[in-house]
């Protein structure tokens, strides 16, 4: 470890770290997008909205922040409907604040912090700035209420066929008494499941909570908290510093399910009816009047699920489709794989769900090189496998549609009974869609639809006052520790300070790279890291001093000092690391945040104290040729005598 060339390594790491940390300090620009409908308002109303924005702006961000906003005091042109805010330290909490205060002017889901060139290059535009937790900067809190009415109606669909059969048996005078008895008890059993006791509701909410937890983990949010509010049948989600709340909400509320439904038997009477009338329209040259065209327009205009459902129900009425069947749209891509996924035709499926998503697990997306498309394969639960085998053996020759959300994505013919419990779904998927479908199958859909009961931005655990004072105090503490180290260990102290700084910089860069959300316990973890890093150096210097006192030559004393201290430092850090890893695995919320910083802090500490400090120290002693290393404090230290 005595070569200058090794210095390249720390410099390289530092350079990379600074690059990663750059977006935190960079001068950046934020796009605040104006809602489309604002331009349709009368001029006076527009003016009111714009004035409200700029009044708040002047009050909150005007002078102190050094932020600028363009264009000032007016609405941006319609073709470029956004304001550009430029400045340093633009936080997600501030972005949220601006959009929340001007809800009728700003389209929150489209606001965007423009990525810096670094984020563009290494992350493909994904943010690289350190995120602050709810407890530090506040964030969003959403309370989602379970819609149990919708849930029961879905349940009724699931049991629809069985219920009619059971009622038939009951009303059939020819049926055996014991069959009637059985039917009766089954009937009460099913009906009792429609009746939701508070206990049942909690169970369903628990399931929903788990799924939301899973969905949030894939969103790279470090400390989301998901809790059940028993009193209101609701789930509360806290999202620290989330800026794009609309997108997250959509992900949270997504109740897409996957299910199998049989198509009406051949010859497709109802489907035929619809197709005939569509063809007639086409022959008349009125393509824009066909139902499928109208439906596509509905989808393209993002009219929402309610409007789509209403449209399909309208079709059922128009063609007199019996109650046991339901109209669906078959979705597919156009001729090229890149064209949009749109409804292309209508199919009529049994209302009864043949196999639900609960029967499937463990789905994997995969690329099918034969058809150059993505597909999803999955495993069926034992119960599901049995059902699937029965289904496929009893309905040979019929079509079995796979319904994802409310889209029919594939409608294959059953050729042979399928046993073995594995199956796959091929449709015209993009990679993203295949992944999404696989997620829906694996995680399961939300058992209950959730509606937003309230959405609120909440304040931090500590006020700004405390954070400001706290940061100042920690900085002063740091500075004092560094001064003390130099006072106590002189040159050694300086080297220790150097490696402490490098340590913190690398740690910050690492945490940024991992999309870590910094919380108060996280800061505690960093403080502990700093403490242990200083301790490691103290241990080393005490050892070196002992060696010097025993009369060893300086270069040997340094080497031996590091060697003697090595295992002590290792033991201390590895034990703490074990405790930290346990905390990550078992802990939640605050414990996790602390443990993650601590664990990475230990990794960086080991590197800086065992490698970096040693490199600096040995270079100083052996290359620069320091002959007298005094590791005694100024003023109090007795004279050291070292043999060069």
């Amino acid at each position, binding site marked *: 470890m005595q070569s200058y060339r090794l210095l390249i390594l720390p410099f390289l790491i530092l350079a990379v770290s600074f690059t990663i940390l750059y977006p935190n300090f960079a001068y950046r620009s934020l796009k605040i997008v104006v809602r489309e409908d604002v331009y349709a308002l009368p001029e006076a109303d527009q003016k009111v909205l714009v004035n409200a924005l700029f009044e708040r702006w002047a009050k909150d961000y005007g002078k102190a922040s050094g932020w600028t906003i363009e264009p000032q005091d007016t609405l941006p042109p319609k073709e470029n409907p956004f304001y550009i805010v430029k400045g340093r330290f633009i936080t997600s909490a501030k972005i949220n604040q601006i959009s929340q205060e001007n809800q009728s002017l700003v389209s929150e889901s489209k606001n965007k912090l423009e990525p810096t060139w670094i984020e563009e290059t290494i992350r493909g535009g994904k943010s690289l700035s350190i995120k602050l937790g709810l407890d530090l900067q506040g964030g969003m809190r959403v309370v989602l209420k379970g819609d149990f009415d919708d849930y029961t109606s879905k349940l009724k669909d699931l049991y629809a066929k069985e219920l009619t059969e059971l009622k038939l048996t009951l009303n059939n005078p020819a049926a055996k008494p014991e069959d009637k008895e059985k039917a009766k008890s089954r009937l009460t059993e099913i009906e009792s499941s429609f009746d939701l006791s508070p206990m049942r509701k909690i169970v369903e909410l628990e399931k929903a909570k788990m799924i939301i937890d899973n969905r949030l983990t894939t969103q790279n949010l470090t400390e989301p908290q998901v809790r059940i509010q028993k009193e209101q049948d609701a789930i509360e989600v806290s999202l620290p510093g989330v800026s794009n709340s609309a997108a997250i909400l959509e992900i949270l509320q997504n109740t897409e399910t996957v299910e199998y439904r049989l198509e009406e038997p051949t010859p497709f009477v109802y489907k035929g009816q619809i197709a005939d009338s569509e063809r007639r329209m086409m022959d008349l040259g009125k393509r824009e009047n066909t139902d499928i065209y109208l439906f596509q327009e509905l989808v393209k205009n993002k009219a929402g699920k309610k409007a789509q459902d209403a449209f399909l129900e309208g079709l059922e009425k128009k063609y007199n489709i019996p109650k046991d069947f339901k109209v669906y749209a078959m979705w597919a891509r156009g001729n090229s794989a890149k064209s949009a996924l749109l409804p292309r035709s209508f199919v009529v499926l049994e209302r009864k769900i043949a196999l639900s998503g609960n029967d499937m697990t463990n789905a994997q997306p995969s690329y099918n090189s034969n058809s150059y498309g993505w597909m999803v394969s999955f495993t069926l639960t034992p119960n599901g496998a049995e059902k699937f085998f029965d289904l496929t053996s009893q309905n040979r020759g019929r079509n079995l549609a796979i319904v994802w959300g409310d889209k029919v994505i594939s409608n294959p013919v059953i050729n042979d009974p399928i046993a073995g419990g594995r199956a796959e779904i091929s449709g015209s998927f993009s990679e993203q869609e295949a992944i999404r479908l696989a997620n829906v199958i694996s995680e399961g859909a939300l058992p209950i639809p959730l509606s937003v009961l309230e959405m609120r931005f909440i304040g931090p655990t500590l006020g700004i*006052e405390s954070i400001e004072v706290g940061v100042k105090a920690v900085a002063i503490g740091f500075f004092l520790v560094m001064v003390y180290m130099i006072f106590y260990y002189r040159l050694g102290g300086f080297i220790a300070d150097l490696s402490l700084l490098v340590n913190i910089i690398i740690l910050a860069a690492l945490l940024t790279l991992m999309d870590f959300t910094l919380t108060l316990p996280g800061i505690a973890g960093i403080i502990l890291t700093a403490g242990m890093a200083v301790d490691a150096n103290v241990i080393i210097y005490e050892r070196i001093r002992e060696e010097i006192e025993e009369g060893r030559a300086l270069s040997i004393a340094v080497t031996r000092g590091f060697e003697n201290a090595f295992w002590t430092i290792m033991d201390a850090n590895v034990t703490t690391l074990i405790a930290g890893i346990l905390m990550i695995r078992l802990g939640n919320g605050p414990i996790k945040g602390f443990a993650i910083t601590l664990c990475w802090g230990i990794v960086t500490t080991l590197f800086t104290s065992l490698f970096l400090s040693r490199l600096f120290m040995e270079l100083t002693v052996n290359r620069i040729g320091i002959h007298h290393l005094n590791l005694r404090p100024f003023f109090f230290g007795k004279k050291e005598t070292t043999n060069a």
Partner: protein
Amino acid sequence: MHNINFTKYKYFTLSFSFLAIVFGFVVTFAKYGGFAHSLDFNGGLRTVVELPADKTRNDLEGYFQSKKIEAVVILLEKEKNIYQLDIGLGSLETIEALYKEIPEDSRESSTSAIDRFVQLLRYEYKLPKEKVLSADQVGAVVGGELTEVGITLLLTTLAIILLYLSIRSQFKFALASSIALVHDILMTLALIGFLQIKPSVPIIAALLTLLGYSINDKIVVFDRIRENAHGKDNLALSNIINVSITQTLGRTINTSFTTMISVVAIIVGGAVELYDFAFVLLFGVIVGTYSSIYIAAPISEIYDQLRKKRFA
């Protein structure tokens, strides 16, 4: 450097610690009926209000103190004078009583505790409705499961440390470190109960930090003991312990001192809401250092003597 006889006082220090812990917990449960209530652990009322510019934090705190309402006041935004007020469940009755004192004509009938609190505030500070930015009855954020997770976590951590240290050094050191760790946690909890410090997220952070610090400290001391004891089985362990502690004393003092500098900076700096955090941490550092020397080391010695007696 002269060796200091640290183990001489072992029975005194061990019983002192034991009594201090028992005393702390007895006071906590007998006098206060348990740990302090806090919003994070037990739930409570939370409001965010915008106060007139001439009202300060001190006014608010003075008001709550005079009315004997336990409240945590957090300044959210300086320019607009916005405060968050957290009220523990323990003060509900007081609020109820105060609500009834409001003249009939200036209060609306309301049933929920949070409504009553808001009315009380509005009456006291003459706030128009829109200055009350939010009012919630909030549930516990970290309570409940945390206690359970905390205990599992602590036990598993101890078990793993015990195993790791038994492999790396000797069982007696591992055992002594673990007991000393438990000692540190109990001692700090006793203090938290004794002083009725409100458990909160920052307090959890402080407990975790001192756990990490304490492990670190114990291992450094034990590593030196192990090193010094190497090949000297016939030497009395107490002697080795004393030599080792003396040798590492410089380091111990330095590290405790540097850690304390940062912690004291927070306390002196005056970050009101971080005060409890820093205070617990400061106490933890002192206890951690004390227990490495006066608890962990003597226990390993006692264990050693007991074992020797059994095989003698």
